[in-house]
């Protein structure tokens, strides 16, 4: 395990960039670069992957603090050994994925509706911002209401407010057993079934549907899962592990097709927009993937018409635009941390520079 504190080096790099007014692209393991597309690939890269190592891990606290460059695999191995897990089960887009990238991108796996988002597990961060300041926000405890929640503000911010130096995360006990059942259901019946199951206090940790098959994952103690199986019904699903990992890491066939790939984040019970014949439902219906040739404006409109939003992942990333009042406010917030607009310009807001 490599243990290296590069925070002062990184601060030096940032200060130099401030002085030269030279924008930076933050890069950890380099596995999320497609999401960082900003229309100007010539910008200087700030490599942060070397700033790594687990700083503190006390299993009885259910809390780990790690430098942002720590590989996800390394962090996972450490918490797994203690019988714990990262609740948000982040996608691994490659072996070099880091915890900093996972937090900055804010992406969560199939357990999201039941075990929480990335930001729900973030207790604190240390941030190196665009003023060359290093600040610690939040902390290492579950209950903490002192100061504004700058830690969670940085989750999903795509590095636009600064460089994450370390993060403190809340962990969960690893379930003793995990079982997946598969049910043959059409899409209409699936929505009904997911809503019915969701209203019962069952130890569900994932529900996903594609091609006439609903997969329901249960996790917990042996007795708890066994008791819940009767309520879920269906058949055992042999390829469960590969399926959930493929869904989490975006490696199922739908993600790898040639057509434009869209993600819709909508209320779980929202009616299905008529955009495609090829849907993949995750998060119990709250995250929906499809490949569609529909014009981007149409997809954005369809998502907002049912109370959600859309994002195109392929062939290139295209994000929804924000209402003007909110965009103005968000950009004022960026200025608080990054007045010169150094970090990852154009990633969150198209045409930012």
């Amino acid at each position, binding site marked *: 395990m490599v243990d290296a504190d590069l925070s002062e080096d990184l601060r030096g790099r940032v200060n130099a960039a401030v002085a030269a007014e030279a924008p930076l692209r933050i890069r950890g393991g380099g596995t999320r670069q497609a999401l960082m597309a900003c229309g100007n690939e010539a910008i200087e890269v700030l490599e942060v992957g070397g700033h790594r190592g687990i700083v503190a891990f006390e299993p009885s606290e259910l809390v780990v603090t790690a430098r942002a460059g720590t590989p996800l695999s390394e962090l996972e191995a450490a918490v797994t050994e203690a019988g714990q897990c990262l609740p948000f089960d982040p996608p691994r887009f490659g072996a070099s994925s880091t915890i900093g990238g996972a937090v900055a991108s804010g992406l969560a796996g199939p357990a999201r509706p039941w075990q929480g988002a990335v930001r729900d597990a973030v207790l604190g961060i240390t941030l190196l911002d665009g003023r060359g300041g290093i600040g610690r926000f939040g902390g290492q405890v579950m209950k903490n*209401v002192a100061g504004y929640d700058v830690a969670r503000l940085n989750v999903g911010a795509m590095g636009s407010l600064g460089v994450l130096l370390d993060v403190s995360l809340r962990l969960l006990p690893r379930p003793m057993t995990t079982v997946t059942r598969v049910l043959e259901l059409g899409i209409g019946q699936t929505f009904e079934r997911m809503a019915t199951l969701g209203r019962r206090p069952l130890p569900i940790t994932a529900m996903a549907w594609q091609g006439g098959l609903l997969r329901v994952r249960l996790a917990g103690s042996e007795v708890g899962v066994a008791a819940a199986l009767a309520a879920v019904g269906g058949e055992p699903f042999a390829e469960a592990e590969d399926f959930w990992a493929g869904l989490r890491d975006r490696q199922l066939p739908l993600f790898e097709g040639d057509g434009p790939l869209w993600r819709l984040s909508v209320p779980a019970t929202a009616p299905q927009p008529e955009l495609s014949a090829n849907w993949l439902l995750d998060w119990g219906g709250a995250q929906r993937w499809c490949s569609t040739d529909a014009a981007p404006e149409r997809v954005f409109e369809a998502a907002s018409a049912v109370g959600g939003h859309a994002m195109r992942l392929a062939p290139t990333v295209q994000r929804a635009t924000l209402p003007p009042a909110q965009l103005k406010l968000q950009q004022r917030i960026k200025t608080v941390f990054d007045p010169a607009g150094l970090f990852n310009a154009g990633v969150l807001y198209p045409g930012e520079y």
Partner: protein
Amino acid sequence: MDRETLAARLREVLPAEDVVDDEEALRPYAGDALTAYRQQPRVVVLPRSIEQVQQVMALCSAEGVPVVARGAGTGLSGGALPHEAGVLLVLARMNRILELDPLGRSARLEPGVRNLAISEAAAPHGLYYAPDPSSQIACSIGGNVAENSGGVHCLKYGLTVHNLLGVKLVTVDGELLELGGCALDSPGLDLLALVTGSEGLLGVVVEVTVRLLPVAASVQVLLAAFDSVAAAGDAVSTVISRGILPAGMEMMDRLAIEAAEDFVHAGYPRDAAAILLCELDGEPEEVAAQVERVTEILRAAGAGDIRVASDPAERARLWAGRKAAFPAVGRIAPDYYCMDGTIPRRHLAEVLTGIGGLSEEFGLAVANVFHAGDGNLHPLILYDANQAGELERAEAFGARILELCVAVGGTITGEHGVGIEKIDQMCVQFTAVELERFHGLKAAFDPAGLLNPGKAVPTLARCAELGGMHVHGGKLPHPELERF
């Protein structure tokens, strides 16, 4: 702006009876549950709609009038203390449940809806709203968002921020922003998280969408007695390290046990140095298995007497002592001062020993009641306000406790908020760089500083004046307040 002019201007946008400017009628609004702080507002307004809130904000913003938003006024840190030259914006009349969606398991609420009313409305559908602050019978959801309120079940179910889907926020100049919604995320920066717990400094929460959870099929409560507080603390850590996540874990020390027993006769063992209450919930089979495992773990950790509540009545009795702990302590001393620090649990024994030492140093007794599962301490410092100097000693003692919490990696407030009460301790927890960013965020939302001025984040000048000296805690809460 003088009272008469301000009231007249506000009556241009609100019905006359919804603007309060009569000296007598203003009195009940002079403070929140931190009753030692009182300040009459210039005018109180009681809007009934989002549009009215927007109009009030637009007017106040144009005229440079400070605005303090208030829900039910149950806050414990003086966050809703009015401003002498300002408008107190009371949201209690906006108290309708706008929508309850049992299939989508969410509820859309006006800010004045009481916390408990949400779970009551959801109960027929087998659902509930998880965060349960001690004041849940009275406190409002808008206030919960402003304070990021907790409760006794945070370890498993999180705080307010973990149970929100969206809020509508009126900005200082009267604009309406929708943050989050019914989907599980939203584009851009996560302003929903930022606004949660911002103590009314960034905007006025006018609508809240919360997620609802299915009510657990089975709930069991265990009571375990220990002959040392350290052993009880270690037992909590062991339970969690063994992969069990209780719905709640609460601890009380001897002084708190005795006070609670004298008051409500919950059947707690008086000879114990500490007791632990552990609530487990889930599928009946799972809970039964967990009760067995937890019993074994607690036994191995040195628990003497272990009791499992056999029925709902017994369960309620075991909880009654804990829930009555604050008023119970209020009976054994003329006054008490409640602290709200959180620490990493492994430092529990060290911090309690430290508090014991400070108790001797200051010559004031302290009863300890806390949310052991998540490390949130509520030491209750006993004193007599009628004895010269005791109040100042209690404040100084409290400040030292919070400094101790920060020193072991914890925080000055776990769930009560900073408000006016703990503003000086913010200087201990945060550096100048961090405070500057907080002020920057405030200015991004509210450049003129009109929303809840003087709360939550101290000026750098104030911190500099305090310098290296021990900072002083807030004024004293009223002893008859129910807090747990």
